[in-house]
């Protein structure tokens, strides 16, 4: 129990964290006229890589073509710079709080291997879903809700609703 108390003290109060995150999102809208995001930067990275490795393929494929026609330099985009900042910010916070450590975090009831297999599956699903849903939890759900986008509310409800529905079947992984 003591351990838990120590830990919870080291994290920010969640309501304070939420207000600070809201102010970051507000600043993004005020200065850049847009919200936060994450998956868009990964998409830019992939498109940029495919452009470099297989330019013919990128030219002949509708998906890359559509993106390249509106984004001449995929890596010089707002979200790519924001994601680089996110990594720096996360690292700084972890360093200050003494949380920098290489480890596989998992429930004591499962092995590291099982955790990593499920992490990979989850990543593939989330990556695919973020493209179909035009943005992930940050870009579509959070930023979309802040500007009252109907699509943002729908995506948010679908993400959390599905995760709640499936939670029972995957409880061994977490509790």
């Amino acid at each position, binding site marked *: 129990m003591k351990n838990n108390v120590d830990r919870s003290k080291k994290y920010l109060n969640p309501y304070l964290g939420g207000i600070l995150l809201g102010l970051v999102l507000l600043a993004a809208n005020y200065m850049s006229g847009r919200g936060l995001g994450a998956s868009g930067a990964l998409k830019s990275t992939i498109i940029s890589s495919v452009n470099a490795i297989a330019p013919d393929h990128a030219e002949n494929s509708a998906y890359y073509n559509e993106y390249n026609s509106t984004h001449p330099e995929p890596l010089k985009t707002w979200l790519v*710079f924001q994601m680089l900042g996110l990594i720096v910010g996360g690292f700084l916070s972890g360093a200050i709080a003494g949380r920098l450590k290489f480890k596989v975090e998992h429930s004591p009831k499962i092995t590291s291997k099982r955790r990593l297999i499920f992490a990979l599956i989850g990543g593939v699903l989330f990556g695919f879903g973020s493209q179909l849903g035009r943005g992930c939890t940050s870009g579509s759900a959070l930023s979309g809700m802040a500007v009252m986008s109907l699509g943002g509310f729908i995506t948010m409800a679908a993400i959390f609703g*599905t995760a709640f529905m499936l939670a029972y079947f995957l409880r061994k992984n*977490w509790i």
Partner: protein
Amino acid sequence: MGPLVINEIISANTNLLIAFLIGIGFGFVLESSGFSSSRKLAGVFYGYDTVVLKVFFTAAITAMIGLLFMSLFGWIDLDLIYINPTYVPSAIAGGAIMGAGFIFGGFCPGTSFCSAAIGKIDAIVFIGGLFIGILIFAEGYSLWEGFYKAGFKGIPKLSESLGLTDGLLAFGVIIAAIGMFYVGEWAEKKFPREEY
């Protein structure tokens, strides 16, 4: 008056610097709030830790109210900010697939990078999965392009769809959020876990 870059008060290159600084704030807040731990994140689905719910909805209402007040004071033109377009079928299906990814993997894209930044190997593997998933979407695009572009509704606001003013909708969202915070606090007492 904001948005600064659209009104050409700052240049496109300055905007990228701002993106980087905003990202630092974003990552710092996520990590400090405990979003670098998949077991804290997944806790919301079992009730033992509802930090996701609290941070997410507090942030959404803070930004929502902030935008309304800034617009009221004439500091920002809300017609110039980006509002996500609405495609109903893909928003639901994409959201459902992301929800499955969340409960399998314990992260979303932003939190996985935040977690990888402090050395979590499961987060790095999740990120590998993200790249694979996006690549599958890109390579198979012709198979789901029709579905992806179906049901386009323009860029409606929820307030318009419900026939409410923005202020009234914001008020409703705040009330709903406070209700959820009560449920969250109750759940943490009902389903406590000593250590995770």
